[in-house]
């Protein structure tokens, strides 16, 4: 009786069994799609599945973690913090005044190489507590102006560094360019100077597309307050690589920027003397300045975090897969056992 009811209403095997179809019949056409019967896979988290996935994660993650750690440890990094040392002892009580004065700001520091460093050795400067991602700051630029000479006056986003008093637009305008880092470093070992290659430190894409080759600096730092470096007005923007590097604003308040590359190997225990011009004012906001020499590996710079993270995830996965295996053997449950259904479990039933 009941099956009759069902079969009389389904006609699901196509229109073939429903006899001669009536004209104008509104009977929905059968298709797997409209009847929601598309072939499909129905994944279920079985213990075997779960244990295997965790095992797989462990197998993949632990080696990656180890590789990351090795890669990170391969990197030789020398960091020298200098913002305090480079202020004469007498001036250390009033650093801001010193940095804003015209006094000689030459400063000599030396760095000892802990391990052999293979070329290329990247020279970075690192700033702390400098919010290159501050909203006022990141918006204060004109990409139109940087790109083409004709858009020179497109400076509306650059305020207050947009126009030099009565002399027209500042090129490049905006706070980012204005605050261009201007400490300089020259390296020597055993009184023999080391060349720092400052070519090729900016992104090729920036050189080709974003910074115009016909755009020359103009009125730069002419806005009444000098914020940082000055630019040679005879060199087009697309060759001002320091500017390009600086204008790739950093994501985080502690960041490094590439200064140049030393293209010779440095030996262990070698002492590098650095003559630096400490011009840049980070003192007004207690920013730190560091000079960094670093080699590179496949993982990038020296940072153990990712390796540790991978190892941790891998270990946890391994532990979980072990744990689940044990629990599975101790307290198994038959999958799909209808006696577990809530209405079969009540004391009212058998």
């Amino acid at each position, binding site marked *: 009786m009941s099956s009759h009811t*069902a079969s009389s209403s389904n006609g699901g095997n196509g229109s073939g069994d429903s006899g001669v179809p009536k004209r104008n019949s509104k009977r929905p056409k059968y298709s797997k799609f409209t*009847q929601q019967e598309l072939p499909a896979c129905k994944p279920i988290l079985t213990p075997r599945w779960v244990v295997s996935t965790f095992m797989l994660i462990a197998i993949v993650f632990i080696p990656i973690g180890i590789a990351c750690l090795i890669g990170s440890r391969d990197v030789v990094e020398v960091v020298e913090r200098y913002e305090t040392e480079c202020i004469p002892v007498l001036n250390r009580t009033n650093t801001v005044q010193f940095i804003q004065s015209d006094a000689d700001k030459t400063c000599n520091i030396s760095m000892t190489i802990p391990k052999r460093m293979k070329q290329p050795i990247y020279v970075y400067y690192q700033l702390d507590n400098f919010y290159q991602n501050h909203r*006022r700051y990141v918006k204060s630029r004109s*990409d139109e102006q940087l790109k083409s000479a004709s858009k020179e006056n497109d400076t509306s986003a650059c305020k207050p560094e947009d126009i*030099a008093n009565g002399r027209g637009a500042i090129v490049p305008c905006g706070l980012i360019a204005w605050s261009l880092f201007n400490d300089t470093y020259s390296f020597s070992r055993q009184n023999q100077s080391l060349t720092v290659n400052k070519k090729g430190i900016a992104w090729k894409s*920036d050189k080709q597309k974003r910074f115009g080759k016909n755009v020359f600096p103009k009125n730069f730092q002419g806005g009444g307050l000098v914020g940082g470096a000055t630019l040679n007005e005879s060199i087009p923007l697309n060759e001002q690589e320091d500017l390009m590097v600086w204008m790739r604003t950093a994501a985080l308040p502690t960041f490094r920027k590439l200064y140049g590359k030393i293209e010779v190997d440095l030996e262990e225990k070698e002492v590098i003397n650095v003559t630096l011009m400490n011009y840049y004012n980070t003192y007004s906001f207690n920013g730190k300045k560091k000079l960094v020499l670093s080699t590179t590996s496949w993982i990038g710079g020296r940072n153990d975090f990712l390796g540790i993270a991978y190892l941790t995830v891998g270990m946890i996965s391994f532990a979980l897969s072990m744990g689940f295996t044990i629990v599975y053997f101790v307290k198994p449950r038959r999958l799909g056992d209808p006696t577990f259904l809530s209405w079969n479990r009540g004391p009212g039933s058998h």
Partner: protein
Amino acid sequence: MDSQNPFEGEISLNRRKEENSVREVRHGSRGGDIELLGLSHKEIGDDDARLVYLNDPVKSNERYEFAGNSIRTSKYSVFSFLPRNLFRQFHRVAYIYFLIIAVLNQLPQLAVFGRGASIMPLAFVLSVTAVKDAYEDWRRHRSDRVENNRLAWVLVDDEFQQKKWKDIQVGEILKIQANETFPCDIVLLSTSEPTGVAFVQTVNLDGESNLKTRYAKQETISKIPEEEMINGLIKCERPNRNIYGFQANMEVEGKRLSLGPSNILLRGCELKNTAWAIGVAVYCGRETKAMLNSSGAPSKRSHLETRMNFETIILSLFLTLLCSIVSVCAAVWLRHRKDELDILPFYRRKDFAHGAPQNFNYYGWGLEIIFTFLMSVIVFQIMIPISLYISMELVRVGQAYFMIRDMLLYDEESNSRFQCRSLNINEDLGQIKYVFSDKTGTLTENKMEFQCASIWGVDYSGGRTISRNDPVKVDGKILQPKMEVKVDPQLLELSRSGKDTKGAKHVHDFLLALAACNTIVPLVVDDTSDSPVKLLDYQGESPDEQALAYAAAAYGFMLTERTSGHIVINIQGERQRFNVLGLHEFDSDRKRMSVILGCPDKTVKVFVKGADTSMFSVIDRSLNTNIIHATEAHLQTYSSMGLRTLVFGIRELNNSEFEQWHLAFEAASTAIIGRAALLRKVANNVENSLTILGASAIEDKLQQGVPEAIESLRTAGIKAWVLTGDKQETAISIGYSSKLLTSKMTSIIINSNSKQSSRRSLEDALVTSKKLTITSGITHNTGASDAAAVNPVALIIDGTSLVHILDSELEELLFELATKCSVVLCCRVAPLQKAGIVALVKNRTRDMTLAIGDGANDVSMIQMADVGVGISGREGQQAVMASDFAMGQFRFLVPLLLVHGHWNYQRMGYMILYNFYRNAVFVLVLFWYVIFTSFTLTTAITEWSSMLYSIIYTALPTIVVGILDKDLSRRTLLKYPQLYGAGHRQEAYNSKLFWLTMIDTLWQSVAVFSIPLFAYWASSIDGSSIGDLWTLAVVILVNLHLAMDISRWSWITHAVIWGSIIATFICVTIIDAVPIFSGYWAIFHVAKTELFWLCLLAIVLAALIPRYVVKFLYQYYSPCDIQIAREAEKFRSPRELRNTKIETNPILGSPHR
């Protein structure tokens, strides 16, 4: 005059849908009498009236500009589309929120996003809706154009000419040919029939396919408009939407005639069986009753959406919290750096360039805080998932698509598909706790079948064989009744034996009564085939009468012709003509009808039929006492079998009696004042001292699959209540045959006549039911799915008791009692009481209610319930029009609730949670970054990616999953109706799940944000590159999160999930390839490094592992029913399942392979 209000009157027995019968105009009420006493001649005040000058449209339209006949169902024109559509769309609070955010962003101080990017999401949502609306409106425009350009014959210059519908004016005289549609509302003047009758089909208006009769006034019948000028004035009421009412009077040739609903032809109806009809247009275009009635069903809000709004409020509090944290921290930061700000390289408060240093873009500490707050609202706006609303709409459309196309919900018989009339409450179908069902037409087929007869004290109920009666030859055509009836051989033999013997005479009279005492119009079906056998179709407004007429035909008494003056009955092959001298309509007071026939043998007889209670009071009890007793006994048996009974009586009128009646009848039917009451009085005078003829029993057949469906619903934990206008015995017997009542149940019956006795019986019943449930109290608590199933109680209550209970303090008692009962049966309830009972439950619980019905009397109940389902049956379209869903059969309720309802609920519940999660995780990633930008709301993720996030990156998968994912197969769901309990227990969406999801969200956002943070700390990474990493990480994460929860992967699911991830990569690449964006080429640089990919992998896994573990532990060690059923579906072979003992429910799913 309690019959004035159809909802208050007592409910009669033998008529279905009683209020219809009162409202509708029946044969014989020539004068279109207005039912209300004293109103028949009511002056229609000049202010309230519209004056229509016959054949003078200019004068008619002079004083008032009546609407022309062109109609406009479209909502917009080309010019008004934009403003009106926008205005309509902004009724949504969510859109206004969106708009405010977009406007805020236009202020220069707050401009977080570029102008384009900030308007895009709103513009997208608006334009999607606008395109949808525009398409719908274009279709309406097209159908309007077709409608307006149809042609009709209009009298112009004494000649009927063709005119477009849109040019027809009030006052013009029209001629309509057979099978044409009326272009406007017309007062009938004359027809091709000499008596001025016109038959109309109102199927377009109320869905009833039977023919209705309309009359022209005697005074105008003879007029031929082409030849003589008709002058006259119609004064009628203002346009209104009551299709059963019309009040007017007409002045023709100095005479004043009153017009009623039987004199008007309504737009949309068709002229049938009448060669032509002439009438004058009184209401045109949008003022026609059809147009005034074309409004959609009231919109309902889904339960889930209401719940969701609560969580949305929590989210907005959360948003406020985030924004407050940001602004407070920003304030502290500003205060802390107060002295440095002027020249701080990344702040530079002072502008030195333009003369004296002055503040630049700095409005003081206080204002800066407010600005920061507002900006953070803009940045974190998608915390409130606006896109969820539009996604939900799309998902519901998709779900409706599949419900409509489900072959299980297609009704072969009426050739009707499932209809989704409301697109807001799909998911409510998964949480229904109470089903309120009408009986007739819903549980039963409303296809009456003559079953038994008791004639002159003899029971003829041996109807087994189907008679193929010798077809009858009339005018060279062979007529055959359309419907076949089972006949009793003994009765058949008697009926053929003429009327010579005494027994045969009674049979003859009884069958004559069946054939004659009705208002049936016999119609010969015009099929095109040349076969001489024509089918005879009995058209009538009462299915009972149809059944009786077919039965009479089967026994050789075939009604073949009806005109206004006579009927022709073919008695055993012999054509006999009876003059219909008078006809007293059925009304709910008398509960009977009578017809006075002039027989061929020159005698005058009155035949009466009616409900047993009303008939026994007019039958002469002194005669034939034995026969009366026997008939009463038979009636008892019949009604206990669930049959509908009618009693027949006869009386021969002698000449003086006839004359007396005739005079009174003539006087009454031409009376102007109180015609209805006068006619009733005349009827009462003639309907007495009857001789009993016998009784008929008609079966109202149960619809296919009803008992199984009810059983399924019960197993699913749904309580079924049946509300019917039928009498108690019939209702109870239908209750048993539909398995609603079982022998295991204890019935409590409440029949009271006063408030006091109602209270007493309710209190007694409560005590009884408590006793019954206490004895089973121990199991009561554990068997949560159906508490009362152990010792079930059925409550049977009648309408009279409900009158005293509803709207009084006794409601509370009734509710308490009713919730203890597993079945409630309310008999003899009026339509408004039905709504009252629904409201009784709806207002007291948070459980969902569903009302299902097929007739006009169910409309109020359907509109009251949370979900209204209309059965598109034989009873017209009113129920369907008012419903949210419409279908062909009651049993479709099972797949609708158990399968589609379950799926829709699970899908929608998950979708809401997922959308909350999806947007929150993104906002939290933005938030964590803000902490590292000195609280200045910089986003590393580009503004375009933020905007595209909920439109392109993650929108499609959730919509597709919301439409297509199935946790369980149809088969399993039908096999274990108990699985429906998941909806009752709100398993797919509840606050526990919400908070769990939010905790998970918190963890995932931390994982997404912090892994790149530490991996790139103190490196030369730039903002755009790390932003791209975060974008991709979030998108991959949320898509995989969804992937992890999908129960069923078809190729479509694969395509959208992986497609979305690929689309995101493509979009990010495109955005980074635009040289004027500061992130130019970033993705190409960062994607070259291994670190990027390792971060991505670490983020996704670290973020998902906790969820994976919790999900597994929960599913494995505390599995819900759905989980077990899923496992069973996958791992247990079907044969193994069949052997388990749980096969309680016989309804199996469709055996599709």
